[in-house]
């Protein structure tokens, strides 16, 4: 039997504006509870919202980056419901005319590019934050109340959890590229809800859509989708169906758990918010935003391939984050060898970042240091292995590679007379390896080179050592 999974995502992103959506309070993560508040974001009687133009600009930026149509005439609506984190009994959001509509995000799959369509991007305000204490009390912090959000709604165009992951990665890196959000899932500046169901492509039977909330990481989202996909398929196999419901991902138990069943459609009694004037966006402003938009990941990747003669894969990795791409472009200012720099970044630099679980912008290495290091290797002053060791030390201490090399006396020895003694000693101590080599065992040569390198404490030029050993064996 064949099954097709349908995944749609709803992503809330906090915009990194200086002030909140409708008042002058600081928009900043954390802070002592209920200190970034005023009559407006507390919804006190008589207070009125005034829209933050920068938030609208950021949302338009996102709309352009995700290939959306921007609605030039729109409005803010009230979404009415009751909850303790909602100060006015309604959230100011957008109903039938979202700011941005009909966009798409492209993801790279093994067999090519896939377009994931976006239904809409609208602007709205965030709610306060509830904390449930061990004693059973609920504390409310309204610092987050009124923080500007965009809600990005995709169409159910993703067919595997992996596609959804790629979509989320692309979405996050793009938002970071255009500098509208810091998109940190762990701080809640990016929040993702999943809609998933499965179709039996032979019988046409399909499960009801399940909504999954409470996802704190991309990894958690992928696991939740995998879990749900399996659960839906299992039910289809048994001739059953899922319940229309909202579930939450339990990170400890590694499973989804029912939060609430969805009765009929929820009725938010949307109506225009008469406190806010209709929004009119001029084409000039849109064009101004468009022309000021930084280079987007896709364009940057194409440029890297062309300008730096990189493979599609390498260009893709280097441009996945704006910071990494600019690290690359800064580094080649110090060492004019794009392929070598690309190899170093793709190899050792990324490995170290992964080991330390940090991003390039949080590490101690600078483009200048990496450029210096690669120059040292390329010019033969240090060998490749020494280079790797120096890189590790740069990561740990942030020192200049040249200083490290000098301090530790790591300059490569390329003077034959200085190495000859060691080579002769190694050969005389390893007669069997010479015999083995002569009998065609190539590995024996590597062993001999290694012994020489070890005896020189890694400083000997390995190519030179190789050549000298071969010369000496020939003469024997």
């Amino acid at each position: 039997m064949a099954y097709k999974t349908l995944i749609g995502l709803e992503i809330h992103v906090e915009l990194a504006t200086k002030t909140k959506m409708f008042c002058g309070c600081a928009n900043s993560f954390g802070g002592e509870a209920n200190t970034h508040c005023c009559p407006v974001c507390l919804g006190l009687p008589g207070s009125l919202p005034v829209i933050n133009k920068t938030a609208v600009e950021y949302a338009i930026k996102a709309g352009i980056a995700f290939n959306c149509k921007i609605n030039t005439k729109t409005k803010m609506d009230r979404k009415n419901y009751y909850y303790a984190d909602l100060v006015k009994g309604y959230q100011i959001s957008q109903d039938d005319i979202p700011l941005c509509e009909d966009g798409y995000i492209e993801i790279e799959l093994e067999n090519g590019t896939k377009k994931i369509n976006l239904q809409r991007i609208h602007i709205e305000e965030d709610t306060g934050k509830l904390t449930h204490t061990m004693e059973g009390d609920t504390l409310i912090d309204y610092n987050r109340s009124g923080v500007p959000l965009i809600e990005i709604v995709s169409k159910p165009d993703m067919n595997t959890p992996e596609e959804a992951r790629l979509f989320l990665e692309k979405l996050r890196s793009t938002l970071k590229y255009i500098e509208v959000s810091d998109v940190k899932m762990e701080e809640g500046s990016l929040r993702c809800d999943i809609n998933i169901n499965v179709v039996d492509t032979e019988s046409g039977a399909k499960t009801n859509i399940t909504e999954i909330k409470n996802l704190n990481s991309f990894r958690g989202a992928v696991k939740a989708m995998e879990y749900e996909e399996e659960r839906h398929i299992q039910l289809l196999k048994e001739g059953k169906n899922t319940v229309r419901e909202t579930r939450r991902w339990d990170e400890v138990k590694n499973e989804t758990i029912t939060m609430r069943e969805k009765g009929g459609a929820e009725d938010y009694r949307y109506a225009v918010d008469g406190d806010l004037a209709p929004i009119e966006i001029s084409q000039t402003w849109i064009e101004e935003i468009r022309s000021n938009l930084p280079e987007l990941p896709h364009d940057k990747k194409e440029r890297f391939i062309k300008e730096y003669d990189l493979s599609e894969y390498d260009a893709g990795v280097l441009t996945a984050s704006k910071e990494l791409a600019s690290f690359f472009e800064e580094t080649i200012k110090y060492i004019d060898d794009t392929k070598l720099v690309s190899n170093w970044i793709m190899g050792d630099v990324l490995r170290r970042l992964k080991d330390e679980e940090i991003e390039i912008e949080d590490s101690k290495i600078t483009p200048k240091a990496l450029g210096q290091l690669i120059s040292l290797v390329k010019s033969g002053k240090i060998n490749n292995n020494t280079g790797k060791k120096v890189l590790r030390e740069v990561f740990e201490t942030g020192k200049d590679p040249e200083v490290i090399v000098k301090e530790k006396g790591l300059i490569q020895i390329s003077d034959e007379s200085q190495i000859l003694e060691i080579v002769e000693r190694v050969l005389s101590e390893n007669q069997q390896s010479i015999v083995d080599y002569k009998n065609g065992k190539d590995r024996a040569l590597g062993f001999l080179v290694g012994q020489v390198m070890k005896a020189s404490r890694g400083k000997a030029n390995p190519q030179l050592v190789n050549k000298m050993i071969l010369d000496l064996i020939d003469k024997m």
Partner: protein
Amino acid sequence: MDIVKLSALEIREKILNKELSATQVVKAHLDRIDEIDKDINAFISINKEEALKAAEQVDEKIKNGEDLGSLAGIPIALKDNIVTRGTKTTCGSKMLEDFMSPYDARVVEMIKSQDGIIIGKTNMDEFAMGSSNERSYFGPTKNPVNTKLVPGGSSGGSAAAVKANEVPLALGTDTGGSIRQPAAYCDLVGIKPSYGLVSRYGVVPLANTLDAVGVFGKNVTDAALMLSAIAGYDEKDSTSYENSIDLVFEKGLEPIEYIKGMKIGIPKEIYLDEVDKRLKDHMDKVIKIFESLGASVEEISLPHLKYGLATYHVIATAEISSNMARFDGLRYGHRAKEYSSLDELYTNSRTEAFGDEVKRRILMGTYYLSMGHGRDYYEKALKMRTLIIDDFNKAFKDYDIILTPTSPILPFELGKLKDEPLTKDLTGIFTAPVNLAGLCAMSIPCGYIDGLPVGLQIIGDRFKENNIIKAGLGFEGGMKNGI
């Protein structure tokens, strides 16, 4: 000299020429309140100490020869849905019985900056829902014209305070007639300015697209003086009008000079079944006065006027249902003592603290916004609103002002319509369409019928306040010899 009988402009002049001190003026009015308010119940809170302190500051300024604002030393009352720091803002409701706002409304700041003295907060129908002031949690207000009568509402406390000489000026709010109808019932001038002329910041909303802060005065000049002090753009109110207008309010011209050449329309649709039959003859007399002052008066048609009240009802209750949601007992206001869940906290707090009329409107508004049939009413009402606006736009192409009676029925006795909310709603039949279209309008006294005061409504186009003020000044003069 009986200070409390002076007009606001007279008080200002006497303070400026040092005939009176601000302290004298404020004390006289506080005494008057002490003497009479137990019979009228116009006030919920009195600002005695603060008012006296403010008066001293004005006197100090005079002593030092400093410049004075346009409201220098004039005692002013505020409807109790305009928030004030330091004095509670109850909205006439148990829900906000002890509510203290941490900030001042924009109009409060403006009054203070013009050296006006805020003397207290006035009684009102709960959350401005009502037209007789009988729906206040703090008891009904009586009409100073005749204490058996209601003062009208929902700004009935402000109207009664001015009529009873407790203050010369007061602010009210008008969503469907809540300034004009009490002005008519209390024989005063009341102005509802164009939507957006006065900032709504700090005014507890009834219906956001209809609400306007406006003024009560004993005459047109006083009302215009008060209005000019609070009108103006406010960046904190996104619906605020960005241009400024200079209002005329100087006296001294002959009535004919204000009115001559004015083109006046009288909608032929005003004499509906629900309208008091005595009003037609009375309106004919009013028209004669305008004609005698050189105006041309013609019959016009506002074909959708008759749907105005129903349209208003649907839109206003829809907005009300949403506006009232924030009063949930969680952060401020009344909280029930008994509850075992968040939902119960909401339900019990709201059940205990809201009166019947508030509950009725929340229920109806919720229905009109709900999916299914209710929604049809809301969508249709929005369309009808557009048609009503078009009617007025057409009329104002050819006419400067439109005249109607302010209320279709004359002031009624306290308690008489208590259980007839629909009849009371009817009083907005000529006033509510003005709010739907965002126009400006004034109610001005135009004589009596069988001993009951009658109000004339003068409607002007958006931000053409000067047309209604001029018409009011002229008519006021023309009325000197009676009707």
